[in-house]
């Protein structure tokens, strides 16, 4: 999963265009992009839209947090749609349990954006209903009085912790969106930082960010060819230690090659 595009559930033009975007997932938003007075209107729009325009990519709905007055009605709307994929804001073990009590079938992408959740990330990540963890950089930076998430050193501890928890339990690790959507250069730097840490992908707040995110999180043709060559040698010789183009190859590199090919087109 390289990218996920946020689409406000109360904006018909964006909902209409959702089919056209090259993304690995859509995050329909009932939370921050929808004013309190428009929550019900957005739910009606989301329901009508998803009933008649099912997407060919996974679509998660960012509902309102479990302690928000709109939470229950958000869940009811998803139940009517039998839509089980949820992006849970202000995720915590308690919030997860609350959400699953309300909708046991839900598949959860946990949005980690409070300081408290970083004390219980492994518990969250190991839960079978959780498919991935996403960093909510803006809210977390606010909670920590930290610099904006776009700062090179910002939230490094949180990013690292989230990554370790996600990888330990084989869940997706998605980086926070880059909010300056007209700054492609800054976006690329931000992506490179996330990639170096090991993130699988990055959320997008504007469709124009998608091609950059998709291409930077996609393995290069050279990397794919090398991975295939290593696998071919391994499978033909049954060896777990050999040399390839002057480099020593052993089990972790073989495993990485298999993972690269498997991950290439994987979606949540």
């Amino acid at each position, binding site marked *: 999963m390289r990218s996920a595009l946020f689409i406000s559930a109360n904006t*018909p033009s964006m*909902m*209409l265009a959702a089919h056209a975007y090259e993304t690995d997932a859509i995050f329909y938003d009932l939370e921050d992009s929808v004013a309190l007075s428009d929550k*019900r*209107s957005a739910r009606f729009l989301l329901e*009508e839209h998803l009933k008649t*325009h099912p997407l060919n990519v996974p679509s998660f709905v960012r509902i309102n947090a479990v302690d928000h007055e709109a939470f229950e009605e958000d869940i009811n709307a998803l139940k009517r749609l039998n839509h089980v994929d949820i992006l849970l804001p202000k995720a915590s073990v308690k919030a997860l349990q609350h959400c699953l009590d309300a909708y046991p079938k839900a598949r959860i992408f946990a949005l980690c954006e409070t300081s408290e959740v970083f004390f219980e990330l492994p518990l969250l990540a190991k839960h079978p209903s959780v498919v991935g963890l996403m960093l909510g950089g803006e809210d977390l930076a606010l909670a920590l009085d930290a610099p904006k998430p776009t700062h090179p050193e910002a939230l490094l501890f949180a990013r690292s912790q989230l990554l370790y928890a996600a990888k330990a339990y084989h869940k997706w690790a998605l980086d926070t969106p880059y909010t300056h959507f007209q700054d492609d250069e800054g976006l690329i730097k931000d992506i490179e930082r996330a990639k170096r840490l090991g993130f699988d992908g990055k959320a997008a707040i504007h469709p124009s960010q998608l091609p950059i995110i998709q291409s930077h999180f996609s393995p290069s043709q050279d990397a794919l060819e090398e991975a295939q060559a290593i696998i071919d040698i391994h499978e033909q010789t049954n060896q777990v230690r050999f040399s390839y183009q002057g480099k020593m190859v052993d089990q972790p590199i073989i495993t990485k090659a298999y993972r690269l090919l498997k991950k290439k087109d994987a979606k949540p």
Partner: protein
Amino acid sequence: MIVSGSLESNDCLITLSPAETFGVRLESVVYAAYGKHIEQLITKECEKLKLTNIAVHCQDQGALDVTILARLKEACAKYREGHLHA
């Protein structure tokens, strides 16, 4: 008077007002091609929602049927809450 939706592209603004009898007034950027269809869509949905004695004014900016239905449902929900005479 109740309003729902917006005048943004691909959206529509629905306004409900009290009236002696049911009626639909449509302004649409695609009136020539879809005007009749949209009027029928609104009339049918209002029948389903049991909206009578209401004048529906729809200012359509190229909304899909699903959007018009969603905005009508929101307007109807506000109506049921009694916002009409508020």
